[in-house]
């Protein structure tokens, strides 16, 4: 178990390192010199240029520069935003809460709904509902997330007027106490539904095929031959074995989901990282953009390690292999 955690952590650290390295290389390789990228101006003032040169050691060789870059990052310094002049780390810290809230809510809902539907359909393969849901899962897979979000805004917010179009709270209402949280839930409903609908297919498909596969294993046939009830076979033996892949996929799905969350945040003006990413892109605020990328890479790596370790706890085969 210990060596397994160490091995996974090593991969995680490697991923973070690669993300940092890619960030560094991109600044080096991009058209224009690093100073203009880091300062956001074609001709920054001599003082600013000097300060940036000093900070990132731009007069040294590339190797030394990379070490300097690592050292600044290790101190939690992601550089300063071109837009606001404030430290990027501070700006991200302010915005990460709403993003996490949206991501986790949708991840949990999608996992639950997708798994339950997957199990249900796997026990009735070829039924009408199974065909319908399989078809729907293709359809949702093919949708651009932002487009679905826009359609929901059009339908539920501007035509039916049931849900607000954007934001996380009603700024004019000035709610407090329970009303405040209800207001957040009210605002979160559309973005969360969009994301959940788009993420359900992953879990649905993996659960469905996993259950079907386990059901066709020899031991299930043997149990059937002993005359055991179908429901007992399923609850006691099939479910446990077939639920495992879902957990693995959960980790990977989080990585894809974060992309989806960022774009959906933009559509619904949800005050998380995604929506100021759009600003960062349109004003070419590279330090901010790269800071977001690094923070996301680190979060994904950490989530995956946690999920993998969890998986190893549940499934002894993983922990004892190799």
């Amino acid at each position, binding site marked *: 178990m210990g060596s397994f955690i160490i091995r996974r952590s090593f991969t995680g650290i490697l991923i973070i390192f*690669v993300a940092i390295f890619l960030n560094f290389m991109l600044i080096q390789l991009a*058209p224009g010199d690093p100073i203009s990228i880091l300062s956001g101006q074609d001709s920054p003032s001599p003082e600013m240029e000097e300060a940036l040169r000093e900070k990132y050691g731009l007069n040294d060789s590339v190797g030394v520069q990379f070490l300097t870059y690592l050292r600044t990052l290790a101190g939690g310094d992601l550089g300063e935003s071109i837009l606001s002049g404030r430290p990027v780390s501070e700006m991200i810290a302010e915005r990460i809460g709403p993003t996490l809230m949206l991501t986790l809510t949708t991840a949990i809902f999608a996992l639950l709904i997708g798994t339950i539907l997957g199990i249900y359909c796997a026990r009735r393969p070829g039924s009408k509902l199974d065909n319908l849901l399989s078809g729907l899962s*293709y*359809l949702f897979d093919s949708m651009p997330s932002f487009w679905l979000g826009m359609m929901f805004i059009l339908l539920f917010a501007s035509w039916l007027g049931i849900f607000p179009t954007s934001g996380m709270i009603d700024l004019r209402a000035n709610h407090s106490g329970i009303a405040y949280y209800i207001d957040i839930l009210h605002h979160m409903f559309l973005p969360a539904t969009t994301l959940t609908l788009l993420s359900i297919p992953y879990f649905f498909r993996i659960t469905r095929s996993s259950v079907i596969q386990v059901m066709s294993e020899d031991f299930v046939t043997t149990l059937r031959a002993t005359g055991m009830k179908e429901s007992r076979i399923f609850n006691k033996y099939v479910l446990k074995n077939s639920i495992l892949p879902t957990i693995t996929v959960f980790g990977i799905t989080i990585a894809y989901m974060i992309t989806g969350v960022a*774009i959906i945040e933009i559509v619904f003006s949800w005050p998380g990282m995604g929506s100021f990413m759009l600003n960062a892109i349109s004003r070419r605020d*590279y330090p901010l*953009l790269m800071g977001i990328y690094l923070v996301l*890479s680190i979060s*994904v790596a950490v989530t995956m390690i946690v999920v993998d370790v969890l998986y190893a706890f549940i499934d002894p085969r993983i922990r004892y292999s190799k």
Partner: protein
Amino acid sequence: MEIKNNNQNIFKKYTNKINEIKQLKVGAILLILLLIVSIFAPVFATHDPYSLGDEMVAAPSSTHYLGTDGLGRDVFSMIIYGTRTSLMIGIVAALISGVIGTLLGGIAGFFGGKIDRLLTEVNNIFLMMPTFFLILIVVALFGSSLINVMLIIGLTSWVGNARLMRAQAMSLRERTFIMGAYSIGEKKWKILLKHIIPNGIFPIIANTTMIISGAILTEASLSFLGLGDPNVVSWGQIIYNGREYMTSAWWISTFAGIVVVLTVLSFYLIGDGLNRVLSPKLHDQN
């Protein structure tokens, strides 16, 4: 005469197979329609997609089938021309990813040992990276030309192909005909290129078809963030431009989105259908 007959049989076998698998049939029909539209775009388009008309934000009518956008451009004609952009981006990006994935996976699985471990580790890293953000930064830094977009999507989406090819190469290298190739003195590289890859390529083709879908969606997302190539018409950009007019002119974004869904769906269906042809046993139970 004999040969011709034989060919007809093979052709018939394939068409039967396509008809048998619903996904493949629907997907293929959709794809053929899309190809026709993109090749004969000037015939189908009623207006010049780039020309700014006088009627701005006009509702769908007999002159403008799907209305006009905020600059008075005909949405129908823009969607028709956008087919070319999306198909090109999807196919080129998927081809890049297919070639890289096949080669890296083939090398890893066939040679094994240290190379395999290294490539598998690289693979794992790519699998866990939020690649969309990498794509986004690269496009923001290096410019959003069509070529940049296709290249970067291709360069970041080969992981699945590499995994598939690796597994194929590992199982193929133990087969007798590969041993036979060794015994007649074939070089390792030649065996990889002449025997391993051609014999194991089929699942990669199926997967690459799905990557076309992913690439089209990625391009749409980039355009939605304002990082599309401003010199061409693309569906993502139509949706992006329509966002401002969402409440007053729903038609701009809605129709472009529907076309994206249909196109992406057709490639998914083909990919899935090909997978079914490949492993009928697995899917018969489903």
